[in-house]
């Protein structure tokens, strides 16, 4: 059952067009990867989905309802959460406050502060530390945990491996199966193709604002991905 789909989604930054008719879909509980080079439009697509960019009403359908153009806070209240690129934690708040703020929308569901702490035990010891004083990997965990606190049905993860050492990336991705176990669909945006393909069942490859390749991770041809990625 399709949870979210886009239909000819376009997006602009002022006069500059960043997305040219994206058709994207994800079913409930699925894991999908969005890959592509820098500037391909991956983050733009996520921003468009979660209401940070103005889009046409019918271009995005979530849970049967056209949500294009809704403000970000309303979209979160419907069950779509974003782990933003660069984490974007609140420096004035400590770890626990950051997490609790994620639950502001008070959506019912399995995720609460205790479950987030059991998912990321290392955060529990640092709950009163200012969020931005943590290491990169720990900050990423806070960012994911914060998004989970809104009990989303769809979690969008924007480059969660960015700037992290490979072993830390492994730890971060190790948490995602627990997220999926609750029935939450996950979209990961990655520049690291291998990581993305390992995690997700399906993938879309973006290049210059268009989908140039999509398919199932287990049957895909690595060469085809490489060509699509670089726009060859």
């Amino acid at each position, binding site marked *: 059952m399709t949870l979210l789909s886009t239909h000819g989604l376009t997006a602009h930054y002022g006069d500059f067009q960043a997305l040219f008719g994206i058709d994207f879909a994800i079913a409930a509980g699925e894991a999908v990867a969005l890959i592509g080079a820098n500037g391909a439009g991956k983050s733009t697509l996520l921003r468009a989905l*979660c*209401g*940070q960019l103005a889009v046409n009403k019918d271009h995005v359908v979530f849970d049967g309802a056209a949500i294009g153009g809704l*403000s*970000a*806070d*309303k979209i*979160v*209240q419907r069950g779509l*959460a*974003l782990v*933003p690129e660069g984490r*974007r934690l*609140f*420096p*004035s*708040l400590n770890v626990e*406050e950051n997490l*609790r*703020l*994620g639950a*502001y*929308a008070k*959506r019912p569901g399995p995720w609460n502060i205790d479950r987030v702490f059991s998912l990321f035990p290392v955060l529990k010891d640092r709950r009163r530390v*200012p969020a*931005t004083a943590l290491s990169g990997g720990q900050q990423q965990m806070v960012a994911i945990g*914060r*998004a989970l606190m*809104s009990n989303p049905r769809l979690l969008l993860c924007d480059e969660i491996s960015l700037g992290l050492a490979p072993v830390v990336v492994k730890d971060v991705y190790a948490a995602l199966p627990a997220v999926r176990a609750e029935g939450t669909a996950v979209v990961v945006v990655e520049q690291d193709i291998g990581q993305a393909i390992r995690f997700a069942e399906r993938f879309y490859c973006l290049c210059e604002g268009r989908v140039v390749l999509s398919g199932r991770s287990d049957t895909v041809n690595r060469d085809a991905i490489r060509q699509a990625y670089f726009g060859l």
Partner: protein
Amino acid sequence: MDWINVLVQGALAGALYALFAAGLSLVFGVMRLVNLAHGDLIVLAAYLAFTLVSGLGLHPLLTMIAVVPLMALLGYALQRGLLNRTLGQGILPPLLVTFGLSIILQNGMMEVFSANTRRLQVGTLEVSSLQILPGLSVGWYPLLVLAVAVVLIGLLQALLYRTRLGAALRATSDDIETVRLMGIDSRHLFAVATGLALAIAGIAGVLMAAKTNFDPMAGPSRLIYAYEAVIIGGMGSLWGTLAGGMVVGIAQAVGGAFDPGWQLLAGHLAFLLVLVAAPRGLFPRAVN
């Protein structure tokens, strides 16, 4: 020259300035907006109290029961209806719109209440005093103002650091875009902040009305005292604002002790001095 007396009186006077400043500081912290009509809104609250006193014969301090909720509602409506539209387009729109608002308020109050100066009577409270030391007595009313300022700032701190709303307000001052990702309607949040700020301004206005003469044009000078308190104290720190208010109050008292004509000037000069010597204020919040 009884310096202790001058210092104490000045510090107590400064507590009122801190109350003027608290709301201003909150709003700027949350949405980077300096409401140039803030002083006029304080004066409006004073006139509201005046209306209730002359109309219903209430004791001035009791008018707070009505004035504070009224001001809170006004603040919410003002932000939601007008000021929200000025955000996100640079510094000019909020400044110019609130400046226009200031002119409208001053002249509106002039029309309704005439240019006569007013003052509310609080009876014996005004003149009774407490003797702390031989030669040093402080009025009960200034002490009351100080107590209110301390309690209010303490409550505001508690709100900001111990409640969900406070966390949302602090987060908004960090990153408004990401705050929306938390499912928070920022337009509503801004309006709540302004409502809170004007509620405090309401308390300040009523307290001021009993202490000093006021007239429709008194707003801008309240704004300046508030602003100086915030800058001297250091932005982002509410207790710093209390200290800043006291510095202004003390400077004014000292200047006034030399020559009444120097009273206001001394306050301004203290502000300029802090600007030169400690541009971030005396107790700035540490920046991450």
